């Protein structure tokens, strides 16, 4: 393939990927986790306040990398932020991950890179979580960079590739502490690849040790800077190491997110829920199998190519096994190991196209591949634009229901008729799992208090509006019946919030509606 054709096709893929990732970013209501991250970022944006929390929320890179996006869009306060501004961050890193695949051209070839880029661009799970304000897509971006830099270094050792690998590794760690799973898988894959290498590796020379030091030094410096909030919180980096204990316990303990070992593979291969459509990324899995065969065929490509392909095989198998064996599973954790499948699928598809010498058969394979990738793209569209918050979409997980936005709309309408407008007192009395994403949606109200129990919230009658979980409704029944008008809203499937409006405000509201 000539350079111009490659550049043109790659550009087309990037444009398509951008379309799927950037369009209508505010379509889906904010997820509980997104709202948590948004408020954490809001504190950094408004007050420069960030301290690493080893118990939750992962590393700081998401927050620091959100800053330029917010500044560029003139959002200097939490209130000025929007879903679109926040989700632009993962969306851009999702597109960036595709661009980084260009680094693989000398390793797996132009055709394989093009087909991998296409897979990454239209994979439903990749598109869906590129539009989700959490760390996963950033981790994916840095992982692509790290693997590419490592192999580029291996191909032609230099201090620049060593530093690049160190930078990406440091950013991976500063994005999610659980990146150690990917690091472990990469190390094990390297070891296994060297076993299959035909030439025995030589002893590392003095320059190699120097490069290793450069790489490690860069990784430590990058992660240290971010975890310590640029040296304002010296404990941050130590806490990031101590967090392993927290995540190790969480990974193994029985809890909300325990799923069987085959959860990820089954979700990718085939899923259908109730009357919903069938979802499958089976094409990627099948092509990845072809990629595995190509990696171990003696006739395919040069030794360097085969080594990097074999590395990808081992990385994919080991990381998939590691993520599958950990009982704690959420669908966004698919991304780091699925990257391996996509790279192998690209190589597998390229190998298939080369394998057939008869033009007609090759054209048929091409058409089948085109139809398969189109189908993936259609599913990506369906997942992100038709079923973005529908539980029948396998990637929708503990997602806020669209109906929840009607609660927010009602509160806005009530504030419009309240004499204090957005300074009216709102009391939220709900368990922490039932509280979010209210703090995000009520961020423009000045007087909102959050309690987990009615006993601590003081007299309810003080509030113009109260939002409670259903458990509190029973406890507050006598007050609510006398003084409030109550309405139910669905927060998540089978989880409700109840909006209580003080009777006199409700009367005012009804009058204003009648006058309209």
């Amino acid at each position, binding site marked *: 393939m000539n350079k111009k054709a490659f550049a043109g096709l790659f550009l087309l893929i990037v444009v398509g990927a951008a379309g799927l990732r950037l369009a209508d970013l505010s379509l889906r209501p904010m997820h509980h986790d997104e709202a948590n991250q948004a408020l954490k970022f809001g504190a950094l944006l408004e007050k420069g306040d960030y301290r690493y929390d080893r118990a939750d929320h992962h590393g700081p890179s998401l927050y620091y990398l959100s800053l330029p996006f917010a500044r560029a869009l003139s959002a200097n306060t939490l209130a000025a932020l929007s879903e679109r501004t926040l989700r632009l961050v993962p969306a851009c890193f999702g597109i960036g991950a595709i661009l980084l695949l260009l680094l693989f051209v000398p390793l797996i070839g132009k055709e394989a890179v093009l087909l991998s880029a296409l897979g990454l661009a239209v994979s439903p799970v990749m598109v869906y979580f590129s539009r989700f304000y959490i760390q996963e897509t950033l981790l994916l971006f840095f992982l692509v960079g790290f693997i590419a830099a490592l192999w580029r270094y291996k191909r032609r050792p230099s201090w620049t590739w060593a530093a690049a690998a160190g930078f990406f590794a440091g950013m991976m760690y500063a994005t999610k502490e659980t990146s150690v799973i990917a690091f472990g898988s990469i190390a094990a894959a390297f070891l296994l690849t060297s076993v299959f290498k035909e030439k025995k590796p030589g002893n590392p020379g003095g320059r190699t040790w120097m490069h290793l030091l450069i790489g490690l030094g860069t990784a430590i410096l990058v992660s240290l800077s971010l975890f310590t909030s640029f040296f304002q919180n010296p404990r941050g980096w130590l806490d990031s190491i101590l967090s392993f204990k927290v995540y190790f316990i969480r990974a193994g303990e029985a809890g909300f*997110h325990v799923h069987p070992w085959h959860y990820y593979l089954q979700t990718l291969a085939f899923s259908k829920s109730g009357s919903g459509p069938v979802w499958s990324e089976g094409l990627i899995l099948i092509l990845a199998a072809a990629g595995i065969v190509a990696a171990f065929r003696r006739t395919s490509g040069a030794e360097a190519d085969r080594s990097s392909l074999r590395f990808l095989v081992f990385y994919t198998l080991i990381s998939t096994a590691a993520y599958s064996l950990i009982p704690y599973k959420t669908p966004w954790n698919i991304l780091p190991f699925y990257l391996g499948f996509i790279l192998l699928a690209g190589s597998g598809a390229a190998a298939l196209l080369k394998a057939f010498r008869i033009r007609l058969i090759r054209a048929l394979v091409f058409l089948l591949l085109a139809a398969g990738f189109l189908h993936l793209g259609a599913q990506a569209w369906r997942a992100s634009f038709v079923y973005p918050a529908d539980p029948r979409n396998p990637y929708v997980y503990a997602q806020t229901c669209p109906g929840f936005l009607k609660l927010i709309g009602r509160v806005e309408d009530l504030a419009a008729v309240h004499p*204090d407008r957005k300074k009216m007192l709102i009391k939220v009395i709900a368990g922490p799992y039932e509280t979010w994403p209210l703090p995000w949606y009520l961020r423009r109200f000045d007087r909102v208090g959050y309690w987990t129990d009615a006993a*601590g919230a003081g007299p309810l009658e003080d509030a113009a509006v109260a939002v409670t979980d259903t458990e509190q409704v029973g406890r507050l029944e006598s007050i609510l019946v006398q003084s409030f008008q109550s309405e139910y809203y669905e927060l998540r499937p089978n989880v409700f919030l109840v909006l209580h409006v003080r009777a006199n405000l409700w009367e005012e509201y009804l009058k204003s*509606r009648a006058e309209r």
Partner: protein
Amino acid sequence: MKRPIFLIIALSIVFGPMASTPSGAAQEQGKEELKLQLPKPMFIGTPRNINSPNLEKITGKPRGAFFVPAGTKLVSLNKPVIASDMQPVIGEVGCVTDGEKSGEDGYFVEFGPGKQYVQIDLKTSQPLQAILVWHYHSQARVYRDVIVQASDDKDFISGVITVFNNDHDNSSGLGIGKDKEYIETFEGKLFDPRGAKARYVRLWSNGNTSNDMNHYVEVEVYATPAQ
């Protein structure tokens, strides 16, 4: 994650009563607005993903016994049904009175978005003793603007008795209702028509907390024979 629960409770005990200061009141001389420090939300990880039916604890107790006059019978089974939307999105209009009450797919009818009604013709005017409705119960939901009416007039122009109305903001335009919203469960919702005599029963709804569509699994009308 630190959970500043004690701080939240302490702050709310101290400042809770102060929050009652009516901020809209005119400012008195020599006084200033009390700046309240309200508790902040607790940061917490991903919540449970609930896909299975009725896993979450729903408030309310199981329905107790409901007493009706002796001789009360189910009179709606297989009776003709009409609807404001005679071309349902899913299912058949007739499933409203077919006696099947399962919450699974295939046992409910789905009508279009917004305000919709179904109407049952009991064939004779008789004293109604109970109306039991299952909108949808494979997932907890609250249906909006549930209004139950009974009448001898098939067009519901005259002699309309409103048995239940929880349209508290009159968004359906049939008058403000004072009844409370309720969460759908497998028990269905029982409405008490208090012996009102009618041939037709009309049930309105206006979407639900999950989507804007309207659903019925089954409606049962119980009555005593007309004298």
